[in-house]
């Protein structure tokens, strides 16, 4: 018989303790829900009509891909520089809490207020003084058809929010300490976005996949670099509607930075792997506040990696995915469904369903500064025999931004990969910290405890990752 893990009780205790502490501050999307310039734009603190608003609760405001992840927009990069680091933040209006210890480091009220307006560029004459803080040095040009009066101007005044050409990068180095110790390159992405005319963008993301077997393998393996994303997109239509075509990962569930979560790995959605990439079309809208995305795609045999550079290297099967929900200022809720239909010898059929949610207590009452998010997935896939197996997976995370650039987190994921099979379930508890010392430099360290069904198998390790991005 399978057992209920005592780890659940531990997680419950930790969650409850954190929820009671009321000392923390939420981060990322939750921060966005309480930042004034999610809705209002400088220089005059105007509020665009709803159809033209870009809000940071939406993935597509900070990332070029409206489904989230990967290359950041100029606005997203600026938002990251201004809100995430311990030092050298850029001034911006932010109704934020002073999280530092008294007298230690820089105060978080990066932009003091005069009356209700942030001290920033209030008119064109003042703007040059703030130019350096809002400039994006990796963006050039203006797309044809863009004028100062064009809708979707971004929210950061003179920032070149929609440049004609923008490049970016994302580099990760990891170390894992357990029975043995590994130091390995994890990921290196180089992004390019070309935005020649208004409403049209070409995104290319070349990723060099790190090989945990060593640096030389990473460099020498011809299959290491590949098109992680390559798609053409028409976007910035009312309510942030868009359509894209090319190679991508279908929108599904929470777009977590941790690609090892079971909510991704159990359903062929581990974004670190080339085989999760599909060739297809996706359309939808990521407005304030509802969002909807639907895709139809072809994919490669489950057991083979697609050609690194030929995005048309797909096999016989097809798939479709739907993702919909509501992202409000203090909470969000979403649901996803994904199905694949393919011959059994290519991996067989899969059906996957997810519900997910997040909560930003800060929005409702200041000084409850936690971020909570969770997802529950279930689905079926075919074994090699053709019989179905049913999976059940969950993920939960609590973040606490203790100080500027310091986020403490607790995450727990649990999976039963085959509901009919005994003793195959496992749960993993992570407790760690993310230190964003300087804009674009994050150190993520976690103690991870894996609980398995066999008494001797549960174990702990320490994982740390240096993440450099721009």
């Amino acid at each position: 018989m399978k057992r209920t893990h005592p780890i659940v009780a531990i997680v419950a205790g930790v969650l409850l303790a954190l929820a009671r502490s009321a000392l923390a501050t939420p981060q990322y999307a939750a921060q966005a829900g309480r930042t004034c310039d999610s809705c209002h734009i400088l220089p005059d603190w105007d509020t665009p009509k709803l159809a033209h608003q870009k809000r940071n609760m939406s993935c597509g405001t900070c990332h070029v891909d409206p489904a989230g992840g990967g290359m950041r927009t100029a606005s997203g990069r600026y938002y990251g520089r201004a809100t995430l680091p311990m030092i050298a933040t850029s001034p911006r209006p932010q109704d934020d809490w002073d999280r530092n210890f008294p007298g230690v480091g820089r105060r978080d009220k990066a932009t003091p207020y005069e009356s209700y307006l942030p001290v920033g560029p209030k008119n064109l004459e003042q703007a040059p003084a703030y130019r350096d803080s809002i400039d994006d040095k990796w963006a050039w040009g203006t797309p044809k058809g863009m004028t100062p009066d064009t809708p979707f101007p971004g929210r950061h005044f003179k920032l070149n929010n929609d440049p004609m050409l923008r490049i970016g990068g994302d580099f990760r180095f990891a170390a894992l300490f357990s029975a043995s110790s590994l130091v390995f390159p994890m990921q290196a992405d180089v992004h390019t976005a070309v935005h020649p005319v208004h409403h049209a963008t070409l995104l290319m993301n070349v990723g060099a996949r790190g090989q945990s077997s060593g640096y030389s393998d990473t460099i020498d393996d011809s299959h290491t670099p590949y098109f992680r994303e390559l798609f053409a997109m028409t976007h910035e239509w009312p309510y942030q509607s868009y359509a894209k075509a090319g190679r991508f990962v279908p929108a599904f569930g929470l777009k977590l930075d941790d690609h090892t979560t079971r909510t991704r790995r159990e359903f062929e959605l581990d974004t670190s792997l080339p085989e999760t990439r599909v060739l297809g079309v996706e359309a939808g809208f990521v407005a304030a506040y509802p969002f909807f995305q639907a895709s139809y795609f072809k994919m490669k045999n489950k057991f083979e990696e697609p050609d690194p550079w030929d995005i048309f290297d797909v096999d016989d099967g097809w798939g479709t995915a739907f993702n919909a929900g509501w992202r409000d200022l203090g909470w969000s809720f979403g649901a996803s469904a994904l199905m694949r239909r393919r011959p059994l010898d290519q991996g067989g059929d899969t059906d996957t369903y997810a519900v997910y949610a997040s909560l930003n207590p800060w929005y409702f009452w200041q000084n409850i500064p936690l971020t909570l998010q969770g997802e529950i997935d279930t689905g079926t896939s075919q074994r090699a025999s053709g019989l179905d197996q049913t999976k059940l997976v969950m993920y939960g995370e609590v973040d606490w931004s203790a100080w500027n650039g310091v986020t403490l987190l607790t995450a727990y994921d649990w999976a039963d990969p085959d509901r009919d099979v005994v003793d195959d379930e496992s749960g993993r508890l992570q407790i760690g910290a993310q230190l964003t010392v300087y804009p674009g430099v994050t150190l993520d360290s976690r103690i991870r405890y894996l609980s398995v069904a066999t008494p001797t198998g549960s174990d702990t390790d320490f994982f740390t990752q240096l993440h450099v991005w721009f």
Partner: protein
Amino acid sequence: MHKAPTRVLKSQLRACVFLLVSAGALAGCASGDKTLDAVDPNAVALNPTFDQVNAIIHNKCVMCHDSGSGGEDNGGNDNLILEDDMAPFETCTEIVAEAESILERIQDNTMPPGAMPRLSSEDRLIIQRWVENNKPAPCNPTP
């Protein structure tokens, strides 16, 4: 925008309790009382090949158990491997020689170590059947 603190606290407490109860219910409702072999004997090949076994070992084990294993000088491994009694599993001969030990460690979930994901039921059954079939392999042609 700002609601009464006590009301908000109560609603958030309810949300936390709901999440925790849901998590507990999910973990507690784990099902299944048979092995994969009993549930679906055809889930993997009845006579797995060495290539199938080698693919699993390569993906799950060789990142540590490579030719540089067995010494603190990292051998030929350009990762920082600091384990002095780790058997390498890179060659056919090494895998055949260590097969029973490998099977034991994956069945009791002590390998892969730490919080790295353990092998799937399918992968375990492939290795189990291959060992039970006397480990057929190019370096072990007439077991």
